[in-house]
């Protein structure tokens, strides 16, 4: 084997957003040596972009809230294909995880009596999101970062992992490169936690940055773990649509939580026209009732703008398709109208939504206290990911754990806003705790030098092909294909076409060429990330084809209704012995009686 610099840790955490940092802190607290690999600089992961808040039934604003209501809301939002145990743990443990952030220095907005303030969000029955204006993610990642750097964690910034290392079935480390010099590194570890986030870069219009290329999904899949629920992609209803260069950038759901309304070009609040049956009892009958809800009146029900994201996105697409969209192909989101309802509305908006005010003012010349915004759906989040044990977060491979967006189960067919940040904390902590336990109970495994050399050779191949293809071109074609053919509205013929195209892209990805040398070379990094993007794109397409119904975030034009046959199954994607991707359906674990009662009581 060639000589590579080697690091030894008990637990290696790959990814340094909310889940990765929380896992690293927990593992370190358990007394083991922890390494933390970040694809970018520390503190820049996508958690920083989260705006609205952290969902936790603290009951600070509405004393009727508790874990049971949160659990029932999460299951309803996920259309009951969630892993019930994860949803239960999440609802029960989220309040402690939020309070813990305060002991580490987080400064949340306050209630009048000095406790953590909570706001309304889509699909949550009560005001539940602990927040800091509209920059909650920044507060969370900075709190974890500033606490984490004093816990003796070894941080490897600007490193990318290419492959997991195995000893038999067990995962015993990872192999990757550092960006600055392009040198390969070996990370030996007794346990590995994947916390790599999402896959948004598989689509053209996305709120995700260049990093989100399905790395953890692909590392786990290639190593032999299973992926579940890959058909469920969350298209956030409100991304910016104009100007073109900002298309896809997120507009927080907090705008609607503060009373923002959606309207078409005729000025009509179209969301009142299509309230799903299972939410009718919880939704306002009149505009006045909706406004009273946003103002905290406990007898009022939520406005239809705060229905779940899957549903709101589809309604927006319908308005646009039927010719009632805004000038630049979106719909209007208006918060400025609240000046009819309150004095000092402009000041109120700037205080509650400072970064939205700033973002539109600076990037689109729009003053949101005076004018409506134009918004449309943007690829935001994947509910699917690595299949894990709900309590320990371990995959089917011993020593391999996953948490956060790259793991799956808690969200089912659709995630509620605010449940992601709490998911990162609850399951990041659990992954760290059980990875540390696994590390204490096991020795370092052996390494296979041939595997490592093969990965290194393949990674360097693009440098040897001087007249190969531009990796950026392939990435762009893939993004367009996924956007057009496996997007919000899906149909078998188009997805078959996408599947074929992905096959072609794979062949093209084998022939990429990069210029320059190995030092901080984004062209090379793009070529290496392509493999991951192609793997997750194939998994999404196959899983979406397999689920022949419409549920949550998956809408099939050829199967527009929910189907009982798919109501209690997950799609499972795995790698077969011949290397091809397989998809199958598997029954969900049965929900126990006491939780069925909780769901029933909260209907």
């Amino acid at each position, binding site marked *: 084997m060639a000589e590579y610099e080697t690091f030894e840790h008990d637990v290696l955490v790959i990814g340094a957003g909310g889940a990765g940092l929380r896992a690293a802190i927990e593992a370190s607290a358990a007394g083991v040596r922890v390494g933390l690999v970040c694809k970018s600089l520390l503190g820049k992961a996508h958690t920083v972009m989260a705006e609205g808040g952290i969902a936790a039934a603290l009951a600070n604003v509405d004393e009727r809230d508790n874990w049971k209501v949160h659990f029932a809301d999460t299951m309803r939002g996920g259309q009951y294909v969630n892993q019930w145990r994860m949803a239960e743990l999440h609802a029960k443990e989220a309040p402690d995880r939020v*309070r813990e952030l305060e002991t580490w220095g987080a400064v949340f907005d306050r209630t009048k009596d000095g406790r953590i303030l909570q706001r309304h969000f889509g699909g949550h029955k009560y005001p539940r999101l602990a927040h*800091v204006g509209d920059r909650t993610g920044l507060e969370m990642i900075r709190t974890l970062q500033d606490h984490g750097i004093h816990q003796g964690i070894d941080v490897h910034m600007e490193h990318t992992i290419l492959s997991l290392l195995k000893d038999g079935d067990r995962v015993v480390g990872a192999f990757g490169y550092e960006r600055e010099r392009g040198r390969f590194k070996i990370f030996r570890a007794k346990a590995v936690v994947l916390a790599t986030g999402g896959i948004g870069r598989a689509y053209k219009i996305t709120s995700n940055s260049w990093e989100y290329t399905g790395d953890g999904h692909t590392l786990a899949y290639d190593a032999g773990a299973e992926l579940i629920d890959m058909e469920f992609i969350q298209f956030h209803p409100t991304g910016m649509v104009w100007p073109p*260069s900002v298309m896809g950038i997120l507009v927080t759901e907090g705008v609607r939580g503060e009373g923002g309304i959606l309207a078409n070009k005729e000025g009509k609040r179209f969301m009142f026209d299509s309230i799903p049956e299972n939410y009718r009892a919880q939704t306002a009958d009149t505009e006045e009732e909706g406004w009273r809800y946003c103002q905290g009146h406990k007898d009022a029900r939520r406005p239809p703008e705060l229905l779940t994201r899957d549903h709101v996105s589809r309604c927006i697409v319908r308005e646009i398709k039927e010719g009632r969209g805004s000038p630049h192909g979106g719909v209007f989101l208006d918060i400025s109208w609240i000046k009819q309802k309150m004095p000092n509305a402009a000041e109120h908006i700037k205080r509650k939504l400072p970064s939205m005010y700033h973002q539109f003012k600076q990037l689109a010349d729009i003053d949101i206290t005076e004018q409506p915004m134009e918004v449309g759906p943007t690829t935001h989040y994947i509910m699917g990911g690595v299949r894990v044990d709900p309590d320990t977060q371990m995959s089917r491979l011993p020593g391999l754990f996953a948490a956060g967006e790259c793991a799956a189960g808690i969200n089912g067919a659709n995630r509620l806003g605010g449940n992601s940040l709490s998911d990162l904390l609850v399951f990041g902590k659990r992954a760290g705790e059980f990875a540390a336990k696994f590390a204490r109970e096991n020795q370092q495994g052996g390494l296979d030098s041939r595997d490592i050399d093969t990965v290194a050779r393949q990674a360097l191949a693009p440098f040897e092909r001087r007249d190969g293809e531009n990796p950026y071109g392939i990435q762009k074609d893939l993004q367009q294909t996924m956007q057009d053919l496996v997007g919000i509205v899906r149909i078998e013929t188009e997805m078959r076409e996408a599947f074929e195209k992905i096959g072609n892209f794979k062949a093209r990805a084998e022939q990429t060429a990069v210029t320059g040398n190995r030092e901080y070379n*984004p*062209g090379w990094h793009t070529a290496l990330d392509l493999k991951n993007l192609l793997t997750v794109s194939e998994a999404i397409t196959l899983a979406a084809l397999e689920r022949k119904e419409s549920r949550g975030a998956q809408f099939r034009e050829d199967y527009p209704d929910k189907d009982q046959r798919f109501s209690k199954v997950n799609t499972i994607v795995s790698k077969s012995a011949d290397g091809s991707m397989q998809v199958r359906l598997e029954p969900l674990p049965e929900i126990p009686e006491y939780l069925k009662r909780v769901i029933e009581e909260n209907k």
Partner: protein
Amino acid sequence: MSTATFKIWRGNSQNGEFRDYTTETAEGMVVLDAVIQIQATQARDLACRWNCKAGKCGSCSAEVNGMPKLMCMTRLSELPLEKPVTVEPMKAFPVIKDLVTDVSWNFRVKKKIKPFKPRPPDAPDGTWRMQQEDIDRVQEFRKCIECFLCQDVCHVLRDHQMYEKFIGPRFLIHVAALEMHPLDTQDRIEELRNTQGIGYCNITKCCTKVCPESIQITDNGIIPLKERVVDEFYDPLGWFWKGLKRLLNR
């Protein structure tokens, strides 16, 4: 389709030069769009950092026409496009490659600052009570996205390279956020005066001017900290009281 020319600094820690790239422009475009477009079509190995593209992560700091800016929040419409737009790395930090600089010093500095240490909880359930007006100031400081543009423009660092003696505006604001946190019990005043070098700041407010989050770094953060240092070390009345307290405590 209209075009614009960008003079982008290309090179590494040893040497480098400006190179011209002409690329198409579109309505609403920002400098980062142009750089990414050039990367995808003309210079695949052009190194630059970016993540959120929405002014929230602080990764894409650079100097655009000589001004420290986030590339993702600098619109082409605010620049004179009849002449080339220069884009170069931050000058206060060593270059790694092209627009990417070695900012690791900042991470080392932060690690040396005493962490948050809360007072015992106010309520039996382990929680605290704080009024919104008591945290407004700290929340202002906590808006910092760690883009390090304030460090880049601070003459103590940029011109005098006093990296060993002065922590720079970013970390003075970090200390201010900790010191003014209603729950914090740690004392960082002595280090502020000694190892962290707050005295080197002579309040030219360059940092405040470039802050993309509009944090009033100097007025709200550094000046109040300087006052605390003065109260602690240069206030005769304070000395008298402290002396008296020591006597009484004996």
